[in-house]
Structures are given as structure tokens and as C-alpha cells.
């Protein structure tokens, strides 16, 4: 066991214990769990559990609703028609299993490094290293794209304002907020998520009133039968539905952010299971519910791929300033994503530094218990996004965000593979079991891996 533990031991912990006891001592007395328990205790002193339950709940919701639902769903609807709901349901099921696996691992060890730590512990040190850096890369790239997007959306109100000014302003504000305290990040994320939730709930309520009571001009044609009376439920065939899977998975990017909050969440034993368990209901209500209402209000073949379907239905219902309202919601969604990016990249660098897999300076926290160096470095890289606004065409960002999806797929796959390792460790008596368990494991783990 000691040999196995030694080979799996984190580099930083190994180096630290070398300094204290010498390598001989490590070989005979120290096991992997003890090393990681020490790391966890070290993190408890460094970081501050400043995220309240309402923060964590809304971060879980906000992570599940991105810009993709407000803008990108037009393209997906035009490709798959009402069958898109099936695509979201299948993708949502995969995400549900990932989140349940993550929830179980988080209850076992609620640390900021989350999946990077789990990969290190249960798959191998290289996988921990690759997961931490890939996740960092994914959020840095997403942050670049989102601040650029925020600049583009500001053009709606200020057409003469150079695009880089709102992009720089947004990044500067979010950087400042993240440096002050984790509670302030949580507070900002709470309000960003609330704006998105209110927009979707408004769509659902107003849309259902129009469909059921036939109010407004759209009320004459709005009907649930629009879902099957324009070429059937699968108008572009099963292939059309299957081909939207990558768009769907793009939309779910960021849902795993909840894991990174674990190290700073108050009462993680209560908060995290509640938040992870409710992901499936949120996907059903916010994604499938919203699509059901949109395609009942307006037949799928009237949706323009380049246009927001939510703006289209609000316009047709007769809601004034519909485009302006959704533009505001999309700016908050972009800012929320960038805020999450600044937060999570700082924490990931902090964890990588703890394991000796990033410069040690990133492992230090400021007087407010925030990993300031990691945040500053990540924000500086995101700043390149502002610079790129000058020099590269918009298409480059499509490519860059596609690359970010690979980081997400890798992270999600490593979560369920780490979970398999955790279950094996529990069976061997090397790890403590937790009450919150992933259903159907190990079959559901392999189902998730196969879907990639």
C-alpha cells in the first residue's frame, strides 16, 4: 500500500514531507489520504468559506444557463427543430450523472482544486496536472471570448464606442471584485444569475399565458401542436438531432464550476448535495421548458439561425424593447461567465501550486484570503482578449471557444473516471464512503465516458 500511495502522492506534499521527515520516513509511514488531508487542512487556513448557501445555489443555476441559450439556440433550433429538446434531455442526463459523481467526490473532500485534486488522487499525478491546467485554459479562453462578447453587445446602445473599452472596463471591474473577497464574487454572481433566471421565468410565464389563453396577436397561432405540425417532431431526422449535441454540450459548459466553490462554501455537506441534485430540474425547466414554450409560440421553421429566438417571441408577443432587454440579459450572462472565469482560474492555479505543478507564487493568498497572484496572472492573460479585439477577426474566437470545449470534455470525463477510482478506494477500505452517492455507478460512469 505504501508503494502505491507513494507513487500517487502529490508532488508538493511529497516535497514538503521530504523536507520534514526525509524520504525513508515517507516510504514507510505516510499514506495518500493523510497527505491530502494535510493539504485540505492547509487550504482551510488559506481560503475563507465566504460563499453562503444562496450564492452556491445561484452559482449552480447560473452555471447551467449561459449566453448559448439566449443567442445560440436559434442555430440549434433551425438544425433540429423540436427534436432539439431530446438533444438537451440526453445532454442533460449526461451532465446530471457528472454532477452527481462530482457531488459525491466533493462530500468526500470539499477542496477548491476539486476535479484536479480528485484526478491527482484517484487517476494519477499527470491527470491531476493535465486537468488543472486544461480547466484553467478553458476558463481563460472563455473569459477572453466573453469580454469580447460584452464589448460587441454594448454596441447595441453605444454604436460609436470602440469595442475594447467596455471589454476592458468589464474585466477591470470583475478583477477588482475577485481580489476583494470571495463573498463579493458570490454576491455579484448571485445577481447575474438572478437576471438570467428572471428572464427565463418571464419567458415561461408569459409564453404559457399566450399559449393557453390566446392573448396578444401571437395567441391566435401559438399552440403546443406547433411542436409536431411543421414536419413532425424530428423534421430534420434523427441525424439533425444528433448533430446538435456539440452545440448542446457548449451550452452546458461551466456547470461544473460548483465544484470549484467547494473549498469556500459554508456548510458544504448540506449545500453541495442540494445544489448538484437540483441540476436536472434546472435543465428540465430552463432549457427544455424554454425551448418547448419558444417552439410552441413560433413554429421552428420561422426561427432565424442568426437571431435570438427569445427576442423573436418577445417581439411577436408585443413586449416593448424586447431586443434591448435581452441584450441586457446577454451582457450579464457574458459578465457572469467572465466573473466565473476569473474566480475559477485563480483557484485552479492555487491548487496546482500546492501540488508543485505551477509556480509557488500562485499558491499564496492575500490578507483577504484570496489567491491574488493566480487571479492577477489569469486576468492578465484574459487581457490578451482585449488586445486581440484589434488584430484578429471574429472567427478566431469561434475557433478558440471550440478549443475550450475540449478542456470541458476532458474535465467532465476525468470527474467520472476519478469517481470510479474513488469507489474502488472505498471498496478497498482506503477511503471513507459518503451518504450522497452517484446512481447506477459504475455503468453510468461508462455511459458518460462513451458519450464523449
Amino acid at each position, binding site marked *: 500500500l505504501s508503494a502505491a500511495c507513494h507513487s500517487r502522492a502529490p508532488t508538493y506534499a511529497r516535497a514538503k514531507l521530504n523536507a520534514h521527515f526525509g524520504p*525513508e520516513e515517507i516510504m514507510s509511514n505516510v499514506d495518500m489520504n493523510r497527505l491530502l488531508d494535510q493539504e485540505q487542512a492547509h487550504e482551510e487556513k488559506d481560503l475563507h468559506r465566504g460563499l453562503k448557501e444562496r450564492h452556491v445555489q445561484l452559482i449552480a443555476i447560473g452555471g447551467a444557463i449561459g449566453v448559448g441559450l439566449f443567442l445560440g439556440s436559434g442555430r440549434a433550433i433551425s438544425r433540429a427543430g423540436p427534436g432539439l429538446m431530446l438533444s438537451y434531455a440526453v445532454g442533460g442526463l449526461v451532465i446530471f450523472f457528472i454532477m452527481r459523481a462530482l457531488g459525491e467526490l466533493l462530500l468526500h473532500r470539499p477542496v477548491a482544486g476539486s476535479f484536479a485534486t480528485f484526478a491527482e488522487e484517484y487517476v494519477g499525478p499527470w491527470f491531476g*496536472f493535465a486537468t488543472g491546467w486544461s480547466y484553467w485554459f478553458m476558463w481563460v479562453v472563455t473569459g477572453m471570448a466573453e469580454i469580447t462578447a460584452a464589448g460587441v453587445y454594448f454596441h447595441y446602445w453605444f454604436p460609436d464606442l470602440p469595442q475594447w473599452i467596455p471589454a476592458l472596463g468589464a474585466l477591470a471591474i470583475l478583477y477588482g471584485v475577485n481580489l476583494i473577497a470571495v463573498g463579493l464574487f458570490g454576491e455579484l454572481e448571485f445577481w447575474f444569475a438572478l437576471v438570467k433566471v428572471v428572464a427565463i421565468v418571464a419567458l415561461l410565464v408569459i409564453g404559457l399565458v399566450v399559449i393557453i389563453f390566446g392573448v396578444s396577436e401571437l395567441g391566435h397561432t401559438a399552440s403546443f401542436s406547433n411542436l409536431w405540425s411543421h414536419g413532425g417532431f424530428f423534421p430534420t431526422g434523427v441525424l439533425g438531432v444528433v448533430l446538435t449535441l*456539440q452545440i448542446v454540450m457548449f451550452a452546458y459548459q461551466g456547470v461544473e464550476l460548483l465544484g470549484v466553490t467547494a473549498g469556500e462554501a459554508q456548510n458544504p455537506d448540506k449545500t453541495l448535495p442540494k445544489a448538484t441534485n437540483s441540476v436536472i430540474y434546472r435543465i428540465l425547466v430552463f432549457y427544455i421548458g424554454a425551448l418547448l414554450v419558444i417552439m410552441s409560440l413560433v413554429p421552428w421553421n420561422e426561427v432565424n439561425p442568426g437571431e435570438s429566438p427569445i427576442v423573436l417571441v418577445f417581439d411577436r408577443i408585443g413586449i416593448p424593447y424586447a431586443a434591448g432587454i435581452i441584450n441586457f440579459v446577454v451582457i450579464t450572462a457574458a459578465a457572469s461567465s467572465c466573473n466565473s472565469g476569473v474566480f475559477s482560474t485563480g483557484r485552479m492555479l492555487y491548487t496546482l501550486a500546492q501540488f508543485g505543478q505551477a509556480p509557488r507564487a500562485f499558491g499564496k493568498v492575500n490578507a483577504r484570503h484570496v489567491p491574488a497572484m493566480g487571479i492577477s496572472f489569469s486576468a492578465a492573460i484574459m487581457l490578451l482578449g482585449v488586445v486581440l479585439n484589434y488584430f484578429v477577426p471574429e472567427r478566431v474566437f469561434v*475557433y478558440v471557444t471550440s*478549443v475550450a470545449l*475540449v478542456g470541458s*470534455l476532458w474535465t467532465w470525463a476525468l470527474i467520472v473516471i476519478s469517481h470510479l477510482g474513488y469507489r474502488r478506494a472505498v471498496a478497498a477500505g482506503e477511503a471513507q464512503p459518503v451518504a450522497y452517492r452517484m446512481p447506477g455507478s459504475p455503468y453510468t460512469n461508462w455511459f458518460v465516458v462513451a458519450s464523449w
Partner: protein
Amino acid sequence: MVAVFLGIDEGTRVALYVAPVWFAILGISYRIIQTRAPQPA
């Protein structure tokens, strides 16, 4: 499956080219870190 579909769309296909490069960079970096880290006897 999703990885296969990334190859179908022109915009997302680039991810399949960049991913091996990214993981190769990670592999090399990890090797360098390992050789520099204090090694237990």
C-alpha cells in the same frame, strides 16, 4: 461521440487539431516539472 461531431462542423473542427498539441505541451511541461522536483529515494 461528441468528439466525433466536433469534426463535422467547420468552426469546431479546429479543436481536434489543437487538442493533441495542447496535451503534448502538457506532457512535456509535466516531464520538465518532474525532473526538477525533489525525488524521494
